[in-house]
Each structure stands twice: as C-alpha cells, then as structure tokens.
C-alpha cells in the first residue's frame, strides 16, 4: 500500500507544504531556417532554431490579446470635451423651478441646452492595459512561428545599407524576387535604423512610397507588424535579439512529481 511505502531520504518534509523536486524541461527539438544573402537572396546556409521559438502551435487567442494590448498602448487618449461645470457661463438659474410648464433647468450650461456642456463626454485618459509579460512574449514567438510555418519568414544575413542606392533599385529587387506589391508586400526588419533601406522602401515619388513594403527597425516592430504584411524579411541578428528579449516564459524549471 502507498502508506507502507518508504519515502526517499532526499525529500525534505520539514515545511508545511512539501516542495516538489524541480527538474529542467527536456531540451527542445530544433528546426532549420534558411539564411539568405541580401540583395540577391542567395541561400547561404541552414541555421537551427529551437522549436519553442519558431515552431509553436497557433494560438489565436493569445495573438488577439497581444494585439489588443498593443493597440491600447498606442492610443493617444487626447479626446476632450467640456462638461457642464467647465463650460464658460454663469451659474444663475435661468428660470423658476415651478410654474413655467417646462422642464426645470438650473444654469444654461445644462447638456440638454444648445451651447451647454457635453453629458459625460470623453476626457483625456490612459487607455493602456496590462498583459502579463510571459503572455506577450509567447504571443510574439507565436507570431514568428506562424510566419515560419506558412513559409512567410525569410531570414537575411545582413541588410547592407550602403548597397541600397534608391527606390528604383529597391523596387526592382522586390519585384524580381516576388516580394513586392503583386505578392503581398513585405516587412523588412533590421537591427538598427535602416537609413537608406527605409528611404528606398517607405518613400518615393507618387504612389511608389511603400508600394512594395516597409522597412522598420526592431524596436519599432510589434506583434501586429509581424502579422500585417505578406511576409517578414528579417535580419538574423534582429531575429536573435527578438527571440532573446521575448523568452521570459521559457527555461523555467518545472515542478515534477518524478522522484529521483
């Protein structure tokens, strides 16, 4: 019987709540990603990434929470109206309380009157919400995993800013490699501010600005940006720093009932 079993000596039962031994989770499997050269997009090599970085199952609910969280934080919240106490005017009672046959009114700043204040109108406020850091990080990696599994994630060794002459050349590169407007546009993510790359993609005469995609630095990117355009073309060092910054829910020791 279980009560007659002898417990191992290594366990400590001095506390009220006995602590379970913790063990490290098994090392995750690895998946391979192709690293491309820029601008000719020549495959250079395969690079392994852990499955819990780029091969997570799709969780639409977590993605939705993260995107709503980002949208809330991005709100300016500057809508403002004047309530009846803030409207400029006298506080004099404009007609007697009784005897008029009309509705009773105090001052002329009543919301029911033209020129009066707004009844519970908007005020500047903070719309940001909170989301646990680990859920946000999980959403980030889920978005990257979704792109990877769809084949919409291209990892580039490096975006050499000096090689980008202008918007015409960049348009040629995007069209040639089927990454541009006719193929859903692409988001290029670089480690630092892209400079020439940003100017080549985001600007241009007339309708050419942003025609084939957008370029952003890694600190400017959110979960929504990762999912918005047709594909994601990201610099390897930017991807590595993203995965490093959004792995707070990983490498946790797991409470286990396996007795050693």
């Amino acid at each position, binding site marked *: 019987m279980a009560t007659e079993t002898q417990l191992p000596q290594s366990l400590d039962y001095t506390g009220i709540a006995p602590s379970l031994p913790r063990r490290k989770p098994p090392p995750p499997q690895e*998946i*391979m*990603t*192709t690293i491309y*050269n820029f*601008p*000719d*997009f*020549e*495959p250079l*090599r*395969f690079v392994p990434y852990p499955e819990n970085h780029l091969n997570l199952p799709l969780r639409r609910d977590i993605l939705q929470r993260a995107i709503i969280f980002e949208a809330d934080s991005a709100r300016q919240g500057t809508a403002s109206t004047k309530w009846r106490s803030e409207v400029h005017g006298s506080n004099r009672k404009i007609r007697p309380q009784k005897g008029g046959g009309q509705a009773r009114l105090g001052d002329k700043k009543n919301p029911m009157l033209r020129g009066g204040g707004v009844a519970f109108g908007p005020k500047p406020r903070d719309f940001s919400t909170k989301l646990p850091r680990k859920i946000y990080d999980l959403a980030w990696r889920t978005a990257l995993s979704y792109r*990877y*599994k*769809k*084949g919409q*994630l291209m990892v580039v060794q490096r975006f050499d800013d*000096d090689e980008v*002459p*202008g*918007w*015409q*050349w960049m*348009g*040629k*590169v995007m069209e*040639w*490699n*089927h990454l541009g407007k006719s193929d859903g546009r692409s988001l290029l993510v670089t480690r630092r501010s892209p*400079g*020439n790359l940003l100017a080549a993609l985001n600007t241009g005469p007339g309708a050419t600005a942003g025609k084939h995609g957008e370029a952003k630095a890694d600190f400017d990117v959110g979960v929504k940006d990762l999912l918005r355009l047709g594909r994601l073309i990201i610099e390897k060092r930017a991807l590595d720093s993203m995965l490093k910054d959004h792995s707070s829910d990983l490498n946790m020791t797991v409470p286990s009932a396996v007795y050693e």
Partner: protein
Amino acid sequence: MQTVWRPFICNHCGLSIARGRDAVKSQRRGLRTRPNHPPRPTTDGDVVFDTRIEDGANAPALESRQSLNRLTASAEDGHPAAPSSLTTSYTEPENVDQVQIGNEVFDLEDVDEDSPGSEAEGYVPAASWEGLKTFKPSEWDAQAQYKAFKSRVSMREPADVERAVHTSLVEIFALRQAGRPVDPIYDAWESVLDHDDLTPKSTSFQPENDGSLALRFGNERQRQSILTKLLKDHSISSENTKGIAAAVDELVANNSRGEEFQDGAQGHAALDDSWRDVSLTDPKIRFAVMKRASQMLGLRINDPDIMRINDAAGLVELFTKKPKPKRLQEQLGNDDRLKGLLNLEMFNKRWTPHHKDIELGREKLIKQELIARGLAKSTPQRAH
C-alpha cells in the same frame, strides 16, 4: 547617405541654372538651362573645362531665383559671354566665334564635346572623380545594376522540375565525390550539363555497400568531361595522356547513333529514375541540391517543407506543387466536383439579363432592328 539638392551654379555669373524637372519648365518658357560660357582659362594659358563650384570667397554673388528671367549677363559685370548691348531679355551673343574674358578676347574652336576621347586642345583625361559630373542614384538604370541569384521566371512543369533536380544531383555529387567545392555551379542560372550527361550511359546512381546511392559515371572520360564543364577548368587530366578535346571527339565518334536514339520521336536517350531515391537526409547535400534546383527553376521552397523531405522524389513533389489559389474564383474553377455538375455554370462577372440576351442571340437582332429603323448607329462590337 542622404541626397542633398544643390543648385547648379555657373562659375562665371553665379546664377543658379535650372536643371532636371525645373529645366523642362524653363525650357518651355524659352529660358536658358545650361551655361553658355567658354572654358575658364588657367594661369598657364591652357584651357580646361571646369565645372567645379568656386570657393565661397571668390564666388560671384548668388543671384535670386527671379534672376533666371534675366539671363543676359552684363558687359559691365565683366561677364565673359556678355553681349555688347545690354538687353532685358536673353539674346545670343552676336559674335559666337570670339569671347571676351576680362580684357582678353579668345577665339572659340569647334570642339565636339560629345565625342569621347576627342583630341581637343587642352583636354586632360581625369585622374580622379573630383570635379566630374555627378548624378543621383535614382537616375541609374536599375535593371542594369541588379544581379539576382535566381531567374525571375519560374518553372513548375513536371518535366522541367525533374530535369532540374536530376541535374542538380549530378552536379553536386560529381563535385563532392571529386573533392571539389560546389560553389562554381551557382555562378549561372542554367546548367552547363546537357541531356547526354544525364543519360544512364553517362551518369547513374548506384547503391553502395552501406545502402546509400552514389553517382557512377560511364567511363573516366565522361567523368572528366563533366568535371571540366562544371569547373570550367581545362587542366583536369587523367592517367591517359590524350587531351580533353580529343577525348570528347573520340567519345562522340565511338557512340553509335543507333544506341542513343532510343526515343525516336524526340531524338534523346531516355533517362532512368535511379536519381529519385537519392537520400537528402544529410543537411549539406539537402541544402546544396535545394539551392541549385531552386536557382534553375526560379522558385523558393518554404523552410518547413524543406525539412520534411527525405529524398529527391520528395523535392520534385515540392517544386511541382501548385501554390494555393489566392482568389476564390480560381479555387472554384479548379474544383472537380463543380466542373462535373451539368446544371451549374460559373462566370467571372455578375450575370445580368443582358448577358442572357447575348447568349440567346436576341441582342444581335435588337441591334439590327434599331439600326434599320435609324434609331441607333452601328458601333464596333464590345467585348462582354
């Protein structure tokens, strides 16, 4: 690198001359867009064409933009191309053969400035780019400046895909077994190997002792021929002292036409399928074959799909798999269940009663009758 717009300033009069889009507008107004000054003489008397902007201390005063309307330079200013009479509108100098610079008068020679290397007096070839004309990157020919890894046009036909994968396997295995780097084959989009190099007589994949497949050549000359083509290295030699060209000639002479033309309709020998079972579990081989085949076909495979394949046949399936249609119209058109239904028709556009009139032939009769009654004119047939 930020492009900063600088006005082109004439060295002599200091006027800002319109260029580019502004030049078009100025030309329409009849204004001059290029300085019409002779070359500035240097101290030793040699005439040098110089388009540099002068130092700030010595530069003439920059005129305002409104001064473009007054492009005639005044003789009192000491302008080299100043006409003798002062006019309010631009006029060409009267004497174009001579020009006055300061107090001296120079004779202008007819120099063809457009011909490169013209032996004009005073022409000095540029040793550096200082002082030469510059232009914006957007003015380049974008197409000429970009060289992609793979071609723009993609091929998904099964015959092309099989040919590309088979060729990739032969190229990569030939180089690996010879201990040579694989990189030279990526220089060109198309393969240097032809159909004869892929026939079972030339190359085939045979099982080894450990069960894996290895590339086998018909004979040593064929191996050298293939390696020479791939590496573009004619120094590849064997124990046989014959030259490569003579060896190839002998190979061609020895091959009888009757043996080669097994498929009489196309005139090419049939290829075997031994290459389909070649294993791609080795990451290096998988990468090299995937890279070369995608370069030849102009296609890109998704990373998860690349990791799932185990052999060359799987790679062929990946390349031949058609992408999912983006539009519902295409997806419905490809649906076999709908095609088999007799009481179902699909149209690209919204079906209206006018379309039914056209289908039944009523529309033609209506038009003819209206024209006959003079109520309508005959018009070209519109596409419906």
